[in-house]
């Protein structure tokens, strides 16, 4: 029996059509088939947010999403936030505010923050906390991440 599924996805602006085994996880599809290594595997159980990608502008855990589930959707990773070589204001703010240490959680944080700013361009601190509370950073203590997001929002 053929267990493959045909999917058609817009990934960082480029349309991709593939046939993948049904059980293929989105993270493996993005990292191994698409070479998008910014999508990081950490907790592997939807807790930490390191594998966050945007699906139609909403943050999802790619470790626990099937590639088949994003058929017909737009998927964005941090690589896709760079337009014509220019960083997204969030990416720049993370640099400027030292909101990055080891950097392993960083793509997930930036994408979760991007999703927040897409629907709420001027979030309060409480709204930032609510949107980012599911992303774990073990290095920074979060203070500079909040600073960076507030700065990017006000810019």
């Amino acid at each position: 029996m053929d267990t493959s599924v045909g999917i058609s996805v817009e990934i960082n602006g480029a349309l991709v059509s593939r046939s993948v085994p049904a059980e293929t996880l989105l993270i493996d599809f993005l990292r191994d088939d698409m070479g998008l290594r910014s999508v990081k595997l950490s907790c592997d159980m939807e807790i930490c947010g390191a594998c966050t990608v945007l699906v139609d502008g909403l943050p999802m855990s790619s470790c626990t999403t099937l590639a088949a589930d994003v058929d017909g959707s737009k998927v964005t990773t941090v690589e896709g936030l760079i337009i014509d070589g220019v960083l997204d204001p969030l990416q720049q703010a993370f640099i400027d505010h030292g909101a990055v240490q080891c950097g392993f959680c960083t793509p997930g944080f930036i994408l979760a923050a991007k999703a927040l700013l897409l629907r709420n361009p001027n979030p309060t601190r409480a709204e930032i906390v609510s949107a980012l509370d599911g992303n774990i950073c073990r290095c920074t203590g979060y203070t500079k991440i909040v600073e960076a997001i507030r700065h990017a929002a006000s810019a």
Partner: protein
Amino acid sequence: MRPDLLEKVSGKAEFISDVSIDGMAYGKVVRSTEPHARIIGMDVSRAEQANGVVCVLTGADSGLLTQTDWGLFYEDRPVIARDRVRYVGEPVAVVVADTQARAEAASRLVVVEYEQLSICATPEQALAGDAPVLHEDFRPISDFYFKGTARGQAGTNVFQDYLLERGDVDSAERSAQRIFEHSYSFPGIAHFAMEPHCAIARFDHAGLTIWSGAQSPTAVQKVLARVFGLPIARVRVIVPYVGGGFGGKASVKIEPLVAAAARKAGRPVKVLLSAEESMLTCRRLAAIITIRTAIDAEGAILSRTGDIVMDGGAYADTGPAVALKSAHRLVGPYRLPNLRIRARAVYTNTVPGAAFRSIGGPQAVWATESHMDEIAAELGEDPVDFRSRHLLQRGDEVIDNLRPLDVDPTVMMDAAVEATTKGHNHASRGLALAVTDPGILPVAGAIVRVHADGSVEVRSMSVEIGQGVRGVLQRIVAETLSQPPEVIHILDPDTAGAPYDWGTGASRSSMIMGLAVEKAAGDAVSKLLALASEAFELETTAISLAPGGLKLGDKTVSFGDLFHAAHGIDSGDVTGQASITPRSLDGKLAQAPLFWETAAAACTVSVDPDTGVVALDTYAGVADIGRALNRSAAEGQEEGAAVQGLGHALFENLVFDDGQPMTAMPLLYRVPRLSDVPADWTTVLIENGDGLGPMGAKGMGEGGILGMAPAIANALARDHGVRLRDLPMTPERVWTALSARKWHAS
């Protein structure tokens, strides 16, 4: 600006888990399900026949190894379990397959038959007279990774027994007016680095190459050379970006196992642990600490004794050093005329203990700073005043024969107090101070190579693990060479090209590697000037470096021009090289510690009386770092360390029930989240330029973790009337204490 940040925000940074090698297979580790057992049978045949499986490494393959057991203080740890396992999670097999998914699937087909042995689940059990002995044969090795030898007692489970003594405690206690004694406990803590352990090993004609997320690549190199009977020159260790370590990737962890799998597979093998497996690989040592202080009629401290028992887990790793440092870190920045602190570390049938940010520090400071407040409360004195009466001053001796104190604890305490006084009730504040002696070996080397196009490569073994070391080294080299930072390229640490360095940890890299690259860049400057002097027939005094090249009087030439003039073609390079040793800086680095890593922390908390949930409302952390080489990175180190402290203060606890890990899983192990961190947060960096490092910097990055837990406990005691002596201070524990107090009062 840190050169790594652009790569990290844009997704280009290559971490060890992103690295692929041609021909690479994937290994999945099969782990012991028993805390202590004899392996009486293992059936790998179904796994071997599974789709895509290359081979299965087991203890039966020990013939591939020149040395079957390794360690840092004792050669107590088998590369792979042979006939016995000592903790749940110990590797018993590695299934190697052509894909990760197939390796995972086949690993479930390995069947292991165990015969259970009686266990030491806790240090108390391990110290009991009839306890099973986990390691019958003690093989200590001296000066191998840390200086010194562990003082274990063969035939027991005690693998370190250290005594720190000053004066005569017994007489002091006999003459005391009052004696206070309290016991505190500190749990095992997972490092929880976001990137789990990962390594790739390849054997080829050149020897063994290993790519690893290692904090101590040269220790990995040394151990692998012994395990596989190779010359150090034939073992190459390469370290790309590492997704967090905090000590959990220091010394040596999974590399011998991964290399053994590659040896058997006959092709490169990558092993990427799951987050859960990383939690079964190492942890902070749990501790039970009893501390006793004698006070005279005037309320002055006469003496202090401490008894520290640390749960070292199944293999010693660097536990002996952790125990020793815990004794030192129990002292505190106080005048203590008489002192007797005993620190023991014992084997138990649990995940091996290992280094973790400020080894032994959080355990000791939790006890000593809670105890200080308890004494002040008993004496009816404000904790700030009580501490003030005993505080050491700059230049005082903390521990005999160590470097005199190089900070002003009063200044630090005052800064923390001030930051948490604004708008708060004075009596609600919790305070904690700490003074630690980083165990830094002042040995490092670096190479700075200037190319004809003006680009500069820096080769060092310092690992970029988030602390920003590449930015610091880049800045130092740029300033020494008078070049813009963007032409300075810090290469991935690679033992094939970079000189020996002890490792990335103990707050040492900015300082020690900073000095090494500064000196190596200086060496490059001398060589460039000498070459220019020859090529252009000028006195070296008439030549200086300028962005992009050199200034010859009022004329500027590029590096290309220099090599053209010197070599006839516009190619070539100049290599500056330098080493730092204990004799460097006129011997100033010989005395330990190189600096005192100190901390002052103050906070206010609120408590939900219905549930016992504690919320941190305000926090201030103070560090004396000599000089901030990168301000936001330095603040980030302090903040991140303090939030890790918040984790063990309120949430984190690696629980073992009869040796079974109960919380070693991301779903069950609660680390601090954004909502736990208050908006009212102050980080104070004291900069007097008085460190021995570049530009007067001291090391930093560990102190911030020390004060949080006792500061919270002290705030809880002062403001809410409950004293907690066990970490973490969970809602249930706080509620239970509140209830007991209410019952007591009624």
